[in-house]
């Protein structure tokens, strides 16, 4: 479980996050949604420690991450898997080497054991046999799946996904979403997905946090978000003509 308490993040004159509090449960897919520029990615970067919060606390289970030194944070980082918006695969390494990389850095596994683990992870994301491809030879969807395989290689307790569907077609997006959901349930991970894709919200959102102007505007489930009367959420969820027409049909 990850808990954030009264987080503030200020860049010069810009106050990005305002007293943001939320809790993200383990074994569930926790979505952070909101329009672009509302502070979603900043929030995610603060939670994983890529940015420092101006004030407030972040807890991984009961450990206060904000008070940890670099060495202690490193131990937490070993339990985090992250899927970046652009996949962030190491382009000088093959698919297999990308997945084996965290294992080679932090475990004492033999080459064969690492290879077995890499093959297992590749199989898990339906990419068996693609070991020797370079990232540049993979499609966008494949790159995302390789990044997921790398993220789960160390059996993480926490999985972060920053806009996992950006740049993907609808069917590949659903594939990625379902994969994230399956892995979350299978390994009982605390998964946080940053997205503004409504399909993802409906498909996999167990807990949804709506961020607006840096505030935690609303929290609920996917069933609740469809019925909410909150104006900002309605503007966000039903922004497209398709969703508007769907809403009209559903009454």
């Amino acid at each position, binding site marked *: 479980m990850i808990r954030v308490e009264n987080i503030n993040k200020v860049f010069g004159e810009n106050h990005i996050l305002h007293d943001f509090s939320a809790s993200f449960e383990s074994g569930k897919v926790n979505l952070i949604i909101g329009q672009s520029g509302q502070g979603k990615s900043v929030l995610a970067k603060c939670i*994983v*420690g*890529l940015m420092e919060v101006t004030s407030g606390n972040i807890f991984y289970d009961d450990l206060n991450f904000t008070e940890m030194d670099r060495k202690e944070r*490193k*131990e937490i*980082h*070993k339990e*985090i898997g*992250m899927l*970046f*918006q*652009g996949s*962030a*695969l*190491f*382009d000088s390494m093959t698919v297999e080497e990308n997945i084996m*990389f*965290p294992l*080679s*850095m*932090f475990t004492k596994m033999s080459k064969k054991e690492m290879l077995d683990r890499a093959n297992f992870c590749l199989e898990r994301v339906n990419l068996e046999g693609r070991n020797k491809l370079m990232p540049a030879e993979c499609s966008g969807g494949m790159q995302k799946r390789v990044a997921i395989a790398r993220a789960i290689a*160390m059996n993480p307790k926490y999985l*972060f996904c920053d806009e996992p569907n950006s740049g993907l077609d609808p069917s590949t997006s659903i594939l990625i979403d379902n994969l994230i959901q399956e892995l979350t349930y299978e390994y009982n991970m605390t998964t946080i997905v940053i997205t503004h894709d409504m399909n993802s919200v409906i498909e996999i959102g167990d807990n949804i946090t709506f961020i607006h102007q840096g505030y935690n505007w609303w929290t609920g489930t996917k069933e609740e978000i469809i019925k909410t009367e909150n104006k900002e959420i309605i503007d966000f969820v039903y922004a497209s003509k398709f969703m508007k027409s769907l809403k009209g049909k559903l009454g």
Partner: protein
Amino acid sequence: MSYIESTGKYVGLIRRVFSRPERFKVYYSRTITEIMTIGLSSIGIVIILSVFMGAVTVIQTASNMDSPLLPRYTIGYITRSSTILEFSPTIISLILAGKVGSNIASEIGTMRVTEQIDALEIMGVNSASFLILPKIIAAVFFFPFLIVLSMGMSLIGGYMAVYFSGLASTEEYLFGIRSFFKISDVTYALQKTAVFAFIMTSVSSYYGYSTKGGALAVGKSSTDAVVWSSILILLANFILTQLLLL
């Protein structure tokens, strides 16, 4: 103020670079790779530049020797001295700062803007040390070999110039390059090279590592890396010459 801030950030980065590596084995293999990437791949350009540098030095020296009292072997002597003391360590380092420096800054800069460095940090890897330390070690270790090669090729270039132009006899040239030879000159040149190698790799890595933005920012980092590496190499050259030769 921004220069002071940049210096502070550079020092902070270097401290992170020299912190204890997570896995020596991985760092070792990365260092070998870097020796091949930034060292061995530079052999060709070093040979070409050095041969012409030596040849031009011979022609320029000969054309400026108006006095008949000066023995012709002076051409070889001046070529050797200027090559060992200055041309090979400094000029070749400046050229390597252009080639290797821009390569390092753009490689690390691209990793920064494509979030590969963030990915390393999230895994718990000290990205500064992982990416930069092998490059520094590779350059500091291997560039002195390149400079020794450059010295040799430069003298061969001078020999060829003498042979084809007839500005002096080859015997006079060979006598000249062996006259008044001090091994300490070579030691001095290699010490300078090691310092220059550190400057060009660390400064270029700093600019790459602190890239913010997209493709344009990577290009700017690459340019800044070459400019500042070159300036700092020249400054270090001045200081080291004062310290080591006087």
